[in-house]
């Protein structure tokens, strides 16, 4: 199967090099190297505990890495100051798993919030932009509703409208299809592809949804226990003879290998 009829440019929009992260004394990500080209859709997949959501949070600059670098649009976010990060964030849109809409605001106010916070545009312009983005996600006319009045799928789409309201160069999704029925998930995938086509947005999607992955990915990064098992096209990942990758693709339960000594130390609180 070919990827989604789009040719990303070779210029890297995201470059992760030798990224090592810890949670307390536990190492979560091991020497991650990954590049995402401008206009590319990179899906990061892996089982629970693989580190895929952690990698996303580090790419968003939410945590400080132990070592390594993360360059977004040429800027190393492990080195820039808070002001520079704020400026960079204007070029980043994020769609979180639960939508993360403010329940006290209307849908329209939620969508327009980044414009009101980060720009000096005229109020008419802001309102038209908000309505346009709601129309893009097929929520035209819903701007006066409160989030509580929306279905799960509509909340996801409203969150996407907010994420793209500033026309970000980088767009990040955390489990976009979680909690959606197959039709709503497919519609969201279609939206992601349309946005990339229209705006040449570089998109990173963290998901464990295989159907969605195969629909939207140009390339896939497969993570397992904090290591990259493979980075490749849909075809390459599907044809991989790696046992762990095939287990993921076939949705097989993983076999937990126990080192008796390490396990006892872990249970008794002794560091190895």
């Amino acid at each position: 199967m070919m990827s989604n009829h789009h040719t990303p440019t070779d210029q890297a929009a995201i470059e992760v090099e030798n990224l090592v992260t810890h949670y307390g004394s536990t190492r979560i990500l091991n020497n991650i190297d990954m590049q995402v080209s401008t206009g590319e859709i990179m899906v990061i997949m892996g089982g629970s505990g693989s580190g895929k959501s952690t990698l996303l949070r580090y790419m968003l600059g939410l945590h400080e890495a132990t070592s390594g670098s993360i360059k977004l649009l040429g800027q190393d976010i492990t080195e820039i100051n808070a002001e520079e990060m704020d400026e960079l964030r204007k070029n980043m849109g994020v769609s979180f798993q639960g939508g993360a809409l403010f329940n006290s605001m209307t849908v329209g106010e939620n969508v327009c919030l980044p414009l009101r916070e980060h720009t000096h545009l005229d109020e008419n312009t802001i309102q038209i932009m908000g309505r346009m983005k709601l129309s893009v996600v097929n929520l035209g006319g819903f701007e006066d509703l409160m989030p509580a009045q929306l279905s799960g799928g509509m909340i996801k789409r409203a969150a996407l409208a907010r994420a793209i309201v500033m026309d970000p160069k980088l767009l990040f999704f955390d489990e976009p299809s979680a909690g959606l029925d197959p039709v709503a998930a497919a519609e969201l995938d279609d939206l992601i592809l349309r946005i990339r086509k229209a705006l040449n947005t570089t998109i990173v999607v963290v998901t464990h949804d295989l159907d969605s992955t195969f629909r939207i990915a140009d390339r896939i990064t497969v993570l397992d226990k904090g290591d990259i098992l493979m980075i490749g096209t849909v075809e390459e990942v599907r044809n991989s003879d790696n046992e762990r990758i095939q287990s993921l693709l076939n949705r097989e339960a993983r076999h937990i290998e126990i080192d008796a000594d390490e396990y006892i130390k872990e249970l008794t609180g002794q560091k190895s």
Partner: protein
Amino acid sequence: MQKISDSPVSFEIDDEQGYLIVRFAGEIDLYGTPHAREVILNCVKSDRNTVIDLSAVTYIDSSGVASLVEGYQLAKTNQLEFGLINTSEAVMNVLQLAHLDKVFSIHASLNERLQAS
């Protein structure tokens, strides 16, 4: 071409065959939009049919498109013509995403527009 200081967009306005032709150049983005918007609305407010030439626009974002929507709406209210010419593929992609390709009157050139009307 009139350059606006500290703005990524410049423009010139010609009076041709009953239309004000606004030729923008550069980027109509969050920084250029306030200027572009003012130019567009001033043309329509002067009670003239207005055509926006986008051939030299290298990038337009949603804020720029919102200004085109405002111009279109004001022209419609005042029973004036408002159209776009020379829209690049990149501009058309943005318009299509917002379903606006079906709203605006879009032609390849002023001549084509005149022939169509």
